[in-house]
Each structure stands twice: as structure tokens, then as C-alpha cells.
């Protein structure tokens, strides 16, 4: 029993070699992590510096600094129009996705397994479907069936809603795991509560956190889905991504300023999703640390 008292290993090897090996292992993982974090951070830093640069040709840091790029952007009506259009698109898509997914998952829980299997297959289709292929298919199909819909934000909203459904579906499905829907629903029915009332008064309050996470994920994935926005509406309903792309060949500083704004929005959304996914206990523990 000496190995327990001295903290040595059960296989008889000296503890110092194991500690050394663990340290090397930890150092290796830390090196990989630092490389990865730098890999993500350096392009962001380069973008921020470029957006604040007045003149920057062949020096390591900009030769002069300027907020001109931001003043050009923030004084442009087109910027605000494109941003509001994009926010409108993201909010509508997020609301639609959550609104159709919650009843569908409820239906899976109380309905037949066949329905569950069908919805699962449908939720996998967007994963196998590149955005460019879906855009082409939508334009072809509605070009024949309903040509008035072509190039309109309504078509973009519909296609984007369908395209983002898998992530919202999985998030809502995970959220449903925490509650025994069948038992609750049966109990509600004995108290003469209808299905719709059950969803509104029981399901929605129980899934608040899951709904917020799903909505945020839907928002973030819609915000910079350039492929669908370019190929379905293009310049006729200029979104933030299209406005940014327009400046690509015109003004690099303006593009970098727009990239910084876009990345900031995505980062805030990612942070909100991460924060919401933590339990209250985890948040308290982290605050204590």
C-alpha cells in the first residue's frame, strides 16, 4: 500500500517521470492551443489595423492612422439601409425557424416515430445541400411556378429559413430533452388544457434558454450567408454582406471597417449563445473564480 501513501504509481514507475510526461503533454496541448488562437486572432488584428490605417504600404505597422474608413461608413445611408435590411432578415428568419421548429419537435415527442424519422431526414437535407445549389434550385423552381417571387426578399427569407433549420432543430430538440413532454401533456389534458395552450403556457416558458440559443444561432448563420443573398436577391435588395462585397474592389479600408463591424456582431451573438447555454450554477461558479 506504499504507492497510495507516497502518491506513487500503481505500476511501480517513478512518479517524477510521469509528472514530466504530463508536463510535456500539457505544454504540447498549450502550444497547439496558442497557435490556434493566434491563427484566429492575427487576421482579426490585421483587419482592425487596416481599418484604422491612413496610409499603409510596406511597413509592419501603418504609416499613419485615421478614422476615415469608419466616418465614410457611418455617414453612408447605404450602410444603414443594408444593415437594417440584414437585421430584419435575420430576425424574421430566426423567428420563423423557431416558430416552425417548436411545434414540430412537440409533434415528434407526442406523435408517431414515422413522423420523427421524416423530420430527421428533412433536417439533414440542408447539411448535404450547398447554399449555391439551393439558390440555383429556388431560382429555377420559382422562376417557373411563381416568377413574381424572383429576386424578392420574401424568397430569400423562405430559402434562408429552410436552410438554417437543422441547427435550430437540434438546439430545440436538445432543449426538449430536459422536460418529459408526454407526461406533462397528459397531465395538462386531464386539466382540459388544449395543445396550443399547452405549447404557449408550458413549453415556451420551459424552453426559454433553448429558444434564445436557437434564435441566436439562426441570427448568426443568416447574417453572413453571402451565397444565398448574392444569388437570390443580389444587388436588388442589398444586404450587409452584399454591401461589403461591393466595396471589395473599391476601398479596402472601408471593407476592413465593415468586416470589423460584421465580426463584432457575430462575436456578440456567439457570446450570447455561449452565455445562455451555461446553467445558472456554472455562471455563479465562474463568477466566484
Amino acid at each position, binding site marked *: 500500500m506504499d504507492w497510495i501513501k507516497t502518491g506513487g504509481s500503481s505500476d511501480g514507475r517513478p512518479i517524477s517521470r510521469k509528472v514530466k510526461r504530463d508536463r510535456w503533454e500539457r505544454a504540447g496541448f498549450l502550444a497547439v492551443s496558442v497557435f490556434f488562437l493566434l491563427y484566429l486572432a492575427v487576421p482579426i488584428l490585421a483587419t482592425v489595423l487596416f481599418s484604422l490605417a491612413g496610409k499603409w504600404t510596406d511597413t509592419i505597422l501603418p504609416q499613419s492612422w485615421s478614422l476615415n474608413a469608419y466616418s465614410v461608413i457611418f455617414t453612408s445611408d447605404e450602410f444603414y439601409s443594408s444593415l437594417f435590411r440584414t437585421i430584419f432578415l435575420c430576425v424574421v428568419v430566426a423567428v420563423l425557424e423557431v416558430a416552425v421548429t417548436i411545434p414540430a419537435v412537440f409533434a415528434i415527442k*407526442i406523435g408517431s416515430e414515422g413522423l420523427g424519422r421524416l423530420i430527421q431526414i428533412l433536417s439533414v437535407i440542408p447539411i448535404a445541400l450547398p447554399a449555391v445549389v439551393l439558390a440555383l434550385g429556388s431560382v429555377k423552381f420559382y422562376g417557373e411556378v411563381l416568377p413574381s417571387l424572383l429576386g424578392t426578399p420574401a424568397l430569400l427569407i423562405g430559402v434562408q429559413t429552410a436552410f438554417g433549420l437543422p441547427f435550430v432543430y437540434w438546439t430545440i430538440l436538445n432543449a426538449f430533452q430536459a422536460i418529459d413532454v408526454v407526461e406533462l401533456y397528459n397531465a395538462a389534458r386531464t386539466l382540459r388544457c388544449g395543445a396550443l395552450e399547452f405549447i404557449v403556457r408550458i413549453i415556451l416558458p420551459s424552453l426559454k434558454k433553448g429558444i434564445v440559443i436557437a434564435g441566436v444561432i439562426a441570427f448568426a448563420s443568416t447574417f453572413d450567408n453571402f451565397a444565398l443573398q448574392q444569388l437570390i436577391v443580389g444587388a436588388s435588395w442589398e444586404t450587409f*454582406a452584399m454591401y461589403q462585397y461591393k466595396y471589395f474592389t473599391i476601398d479596402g479600408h472601408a471593407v476592413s471597417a465593415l468586416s470589423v463591424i*460584421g465580426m463584432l456582431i457575430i*462575436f456578440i451573438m456567439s457570446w450570447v449563445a455561449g*452565455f445562455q447555454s451555461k446553467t445558472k450554477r456554472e455562471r455563479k461558479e465562474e463568477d466566484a473564480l
Partner: protein
Amino acid sequence: MVRMEKEQSHNSRKRHAGGSLSYLFALPYLIVCALFLVFPVISIIVHSFDSGLNGWFSVVCNSTYVRAFQGSCRLAIWTTAEAAALGGLLALFWAPKLSKHSWFLAFINFGAHNGGVSLAFSFIATLGTNGMLSLLLKHMGIGMLADFKLVSLSGLHWAYLSFLVPFMCLIFMPAVGCLKPEWFAAARTLGSGKLRYFWKVAGPVLLPSFFSSTTLVFLQAMGTYATAQAITDNRINLITLQIGYLMQMSVFNRSDADILSVLLLFIMIVATCIYDVFNKRASKWIG
């Protein structure tokens, strides 16, 4: 026997609970999928036969399109292999630490969603001819990036990695999180070291999840359009860029886009089936 009875009881409760009402609640979801997923895909498949089999032969034998498929597959496989290795390692290291370091989850969440035009410009600002890193290395006398071209498959691969690695890490992490510490403790009491534990216990448990996550990364890499379009402006031959170009710019060969889309869809469906197989195996442990 007890488990079967419990399942039957649960299923009978479900049938008693929902019945045909469940289809009514699933209707909006089914309508959205039908109108904006299923019908467009069927439309592409039907239109791909507009020129009959001759159209198919001309596309399949067109060297430009063949090179596009080769380029896309090469880039997707290359980036997938690297993203799977690095993302998997990061997930193994960080999964047990997330409760104390949730900032890492926010960071990789951001990285996985950060794509398109913003990412493209970030890489041009970093690795372009007058990019920050290119200038820094030039001033230090390191000629590593002297012959580097961002507008190339190798250049694109660095841009792809910046969202594929976080994506792999994000989707593989839940599987790593399901490894129970008791398994390692039990393995240690039986004299097993870390390597042996990973080879005999954790590895077989994590392998299906690893492969299903890798397949998802491949799907993402194969279908990427925005980042490639913004960086290369159609100067590199990739299949998604070809489809986008034929859709927007081409006057005479628009029908080729349907056939190329069906071929791309076929590759993606095969990968999705592989993902489904591994995902079912993984759910045995992950649940």
C-alpha cells in the same frame, strides 16, 4: 424484457397523447421544407435532363468541369484532414476545461461562424502581397511567404482552416465531454497508462463521433462558396464557383449548372450517408 415493456408503455402513452394532432403541429415545418428545400432540389434534378443524356456527357467530358471537381475534392480532403486532426486535438484538450474557460467556447463559436466576405478580407489583410504578416516576415528577412499566393488552392486552404478547425472542435467537443472520468480511473487501477487507455477505451468510443464530425467538416469544405468567391473572384476553378458563375454570368451554358449541381449533390449525399452511419454508432455511447 423490462426494457421492451417500458418502451411499449412509452409508445402507447405517446399514441394516446398525440395521435393525428401531431401531424397538424408538424405541418408548418413540413411545408417550409417542401417549398424551399424539396421542390427546388427536385427542380434541379428534373432540369438537369433538359438536354437529355447528351447534356450530361458534355458536362462530364468537359475538362474545365472535371478540373473544378478535382480542385474542390482536393481542397476539401486536404482541409478536412488538417481540420479533423487539429480540431480533434483541441476538443480533447479543452472539453474537460470548458466549465472554467467558457471564453474558449465563445471564441470557437465565433470562429466557426466567421466566414464569407469578412474572413476573406481578413486573410487578404494578413497574407496578401501587402498583408501584415507578409510585411512582417519580409522585414525580418524571412522569405517564407515570398512565393506564397493567397489566390491559389494552398492560399485558400489557410482561409478554410480558420473556420473548419473551430467547426470541428465545436461539433466533436460534446462527444469528448461524454467520456466518463471513472473509465480512466478504472483503467488506471488495472495498470493502464494514458496511451493504452486512449487506444483501448476512449479511442473506440470516440472514433464514430470523430468520423461523423470529420464528414460534416468535409461537407462544409466541399460546399463553401462565399469565402472562395470573395478571395479568388472566380480565378480558381472550384465547382461551387463554377455553379455560381454559370448561374449569374453565363448566357449559353446555364443548363450545365443543373448537371454540376446534381453531381455535387451526389457527392454530398454519399458523404451524408457516411455521416449517418457513424452518427448512429456514436449515439450508442453519446446518447
